[in-house]
């Protein structure tokens, strides 16, 4: 065995890319899980095509998974790649531009056939000319090696071919000094009923690992030590999954049954899938005939006293708009999760974007205010979903949660919250008192009306989409009453400002530049600000979790900085609100590529300003 160097490094960014049938997401998932177990901090970014199965070998069919693992605190899946695994010419074509000069490039040489090269648009074989000379290229005939390694086994060549992602995984485990045992254990569980797959994939994993160990061309192993985590029990969590758990936690805390009405749409469907598994928690999921019926059923269940939720993405949220207006005027609790994706129209369904803020804020007829919350990281989706439920129930209102495809599918290590630490959600239903029930009588402080559910004797009442008379709830066309109701609905939402904790500022509390962000830009902004501050720049960060209403202290914070920069993955939406609310000349950063920001893009913009 050759003597290998071990080099200690702080962080590594790798990306697995291959055909959508090549198991790249699975490979990423396993690498993530193993890296979590060795104690690294992590950020992941699955990036898959919208097509279910584009032709094998085509550019449209390339699926990728990126992750950063680190021995320090990190906030993103990283920018430029230290290592790229490209399983075919199309994957190489799509992703090589992101590999650092001198970066590690592992390709499956067996797939570099004339046909595949042509499909991917390579005029000549890049493995045979000098086009990859800037990288440390390892072109490996994975398919042939695996065929040899499994000669003694009674498995089909197709099964062998399909295990090649585990070869790649094994090789990277060796390269970055990770154990292979957890993956073998996982395979045993996953394929309990198909021992031949356990055998084939384990063999592939070991072959890949040993290949690194014994092959002279791999001279260096890299070591990324554990990150300095706060003590506790951790798991890795994906944003959508965290949101689903947050909803369930809110249902338990409030003591209400959870009703979820929805219609499948990328990238929100996973929430429907997940909740549909929770029948033993009493969760009622209803896959409706369309988006409108999804939210409609949720409103019906809300009228009947359930904690009701719907989730969708842009096109579906458009369809739900009228019904959300009904929830606004009938003042029923409803949580609407918008897992934003690139638009307009169908846009790019699997790609991320933040362009639905105005849709949430203003995308209904009439004066129709709703509170809007937004999570900053995948794990934060849990807390924001929980908080959205609490607000919906306390104020009898629909609440928007703006997540996006990046948060929804991305993951991070997550310290498992204790349910007992969450703010208890108190719910009280109206009870029969003397006199007629007045459905639009309000709590003096919160301005919430009472919740009187069908089945309660003596509380029979009628609500609906026509304007209501203050207190009595009868239909009213009175001009003064309408003016009052418009103002009351607005005041109710504005009053939620009392729920917003003081804005945290990362960095100095006054200075030259403040970067304000919301949603999934948190990690890129934080990473950029850390780096800029290391370079001595006067830059701070404030990240908003409430977009409507805005935090009470925001106006005063803005005045403490000479310049305010607002990066958004849209053409400038929050910035328009901030400019009009606070009359400051904020600067926008607006790159709308269907991709999360990179640290470098933010640094570049800051350097332009300062």
């Amino acid at each position, binding site marked *: 065995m050759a003597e290998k160097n071990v080099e200690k490094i702080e962080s590594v960014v790798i990306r697995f890319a291959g055909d959508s049938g090549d198991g790249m997401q699975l490979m990423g998932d396993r690498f993530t899980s193993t890296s979590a177990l060795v104690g690294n901090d992590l950020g992941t970014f699955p990036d898959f095509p919208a097509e279910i199965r584009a032709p094998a070998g085509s550019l449209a069919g390339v699926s990728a998974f990126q992750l950063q693992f680190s021995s320090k605190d990190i906030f993103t899946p990283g920018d430029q790649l230290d290592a790229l695994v490209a399983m075919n010419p199309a994957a190489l074509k799509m992703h090589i531009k992101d590999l650092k000069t001198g970066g590690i490039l592992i390709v499956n040489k067996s797939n570099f056939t004339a046909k595949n090269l042509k499909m991917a648009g390579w005029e000549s074989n890049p493995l045979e000319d000098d086009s990859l000379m800037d990288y440390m290229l390892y072109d490996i005939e994975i398919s042939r090696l695996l065929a040899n390694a499994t000669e003694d086994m009674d498995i089909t060549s197709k099964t062998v071919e399909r295990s090649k992602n585990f070869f790649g995984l094994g090789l990277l485990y060796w390269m970055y000094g990770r154990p292979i045992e957890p993956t073998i254990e996982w395979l045993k569980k996953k394929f309990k009923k198909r021992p031949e797959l356990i055998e084939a994939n384990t063999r592939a994993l070991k072959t890949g690992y040993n290949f690194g160990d014994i092959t002279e061309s791999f001279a260096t192993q890299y070591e990324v030590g554990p990150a300095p985590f706060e003590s506790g029990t951790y798991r890795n969590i994906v944003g959508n999954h965290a949101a689903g758990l947050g909803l369930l936690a809110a249902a338990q805390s409030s003591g209400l049954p959870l009703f979820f009405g929805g219609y499948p749409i990328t990238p929100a469907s996973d929430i429907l899938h997940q909740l549909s598994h929770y*029948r033993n928690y009493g969760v*009622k999921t209803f896959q409706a005939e369309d988006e409108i019926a999804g939210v409609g059923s949720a409103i019906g269940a809300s009228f009947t006293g359930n904690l009701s939720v719907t989730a969708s993405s842009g096109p579906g949220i458009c369809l739900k708009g009228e019904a959300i207006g009904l929830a606004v005027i009938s003042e029923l609790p409803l949580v609407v999760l918008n897992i934003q994706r690139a638009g307009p129209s169908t846009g790019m369904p699997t790609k991320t974007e933040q362009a639905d803020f105005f849709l949430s804020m203003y995308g209904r007829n009439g004066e129709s205010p709703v509170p809007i919350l937004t999570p900053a990281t995948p794990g934060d989706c849990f807390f924001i979903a929980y908080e959205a439920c609490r607000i919906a129930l306390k104020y009898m209102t629909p609440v928007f949660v703006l997540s996006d495809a990046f948060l929804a599918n991305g993951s991070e290590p997550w310290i498992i919250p204790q349910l007992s630490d969450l703010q208890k959600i108190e719910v009280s239903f109206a009870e029969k008192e003397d006199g007629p029930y007045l459905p639009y009588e309000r709590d003096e402080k919160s301005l919430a009306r009472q919740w009187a559910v069908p089945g309660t004797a003596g509380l*029979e009442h009628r609500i609906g989409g026509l304007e209501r008379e203050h207190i009595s709830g009868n239909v009213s066309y009175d001009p003064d009453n309408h003016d009052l109701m418009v103002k009351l609905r607005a005041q109710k939402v504005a009053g939620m400002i009392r729920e917003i904790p003081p804005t945290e500022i990362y960095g100095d509390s006054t200075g030259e530049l403040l970067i304000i962000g919301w949603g999934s830009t948190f990690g890129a902004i934080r990473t950029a600000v850390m780096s800029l501050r290391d370079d001595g720049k006067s830059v701070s960060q404030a990240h908003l979790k409430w977009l409507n209403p805005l935090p009470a202290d925001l106006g005063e914070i803005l005045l403490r900085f000479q310049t305010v920069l607002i990066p958004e993955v849209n053409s400038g939406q929050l910035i328009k609100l901030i400019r009009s609310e606070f009359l400051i000349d904020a600067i926008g950063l607006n790159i709308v590529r269907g991709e999360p920001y990179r640290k470098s893009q933010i640094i570049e913009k800051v350097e332009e300003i300062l």
Partner: protein
Amino acid sequence: MTDTSAATPLSRKDFVSDQDVRWCPGCGDYSILAQTQKTMPDLGVPKEKFVFVAGIGCSSRFPYYMNAFGFHTIHGRAPAIATGVKIANPDLSVWVITGDGDALSIGGNHLIHVLRRNVDINIVMFNNQIYGLTKGQYSPTSEFGKKTKSSPFGSLDRPFNPPSVALGAQSTFVARTIDSHTHHLQEMLKRVHEHKGTSFLEVYQNCNIFNDGAFAHLKDREVKDDNVLELKHGEPMIFGKEKNKGIRLNGFNPEMVKIGTGISADDLLVHDENNRNLAGLLANFTEDDSLPTPLGVIYSEDQPRYEELMIEQIEEAKKKLGEGDLQKLLAGTDTWEVA
């Protein structure tokens, strides 16, 4: 849902709300409201368990006039909202009040899907073959060529046949009645209530402002008996002023025959509410001018209810997996400790 323990018997006035009824004088809706208020006390359901859900249109103002839980929602969506109500609390008696435009045009998608799911709700569709609230445009049940405010040269739309739509959507209960036949209407409301599963009741309703007389041939004393076939389960299909007309099957086709001319009641079709093929034939009667319009229960079958199946799944899952432990669920399967 039937609860006979209600302390004092309910009466019609228990279901009359304090709101002024604002339909046009002479509208057929008044009768439907009155028959509903008369029928509800006899259903054995405590008042607080009635929920009336409506969409948009003249008919959909109905919940305001019923002293019950009511939700006047948005155009066409009442079946979806009522589905949520029923799933959330299967113990409620849930009624959807809708019209031909609300149910079959803007809400067509929700209607067909609630029917196939067989959620136990009662859909009462007022069919006046016109848009009344928006003042007189043709509806999806208006006759071809109808001249209206939006079709001065005649409508180019072929109309829906509502019972056919319902049967095509796998409805488990389809019936028809008419606003002015008060006893029949009451009887149908009872049948709708008794049916477990989604019930679809079409009520021919006269809009005396924009489509007056649309059903005159079924209402006018002089002619109605010759034009209406009142369906009775297990009985031969006989109608006519003189009770001398009947329906016979000639090959695949129903035909009107005169009893006495060598034809006796034994030669006639016998109504069977549970026969889907027969229901299909009956639904098509209105498309053949030589046949009478059937009123009554066209079809009825027993199928599992969506909301009951869901509860069964929940119970089953609890039995199999145990009541969920959320703290455990939060941890998932792969955790690690940091000291």
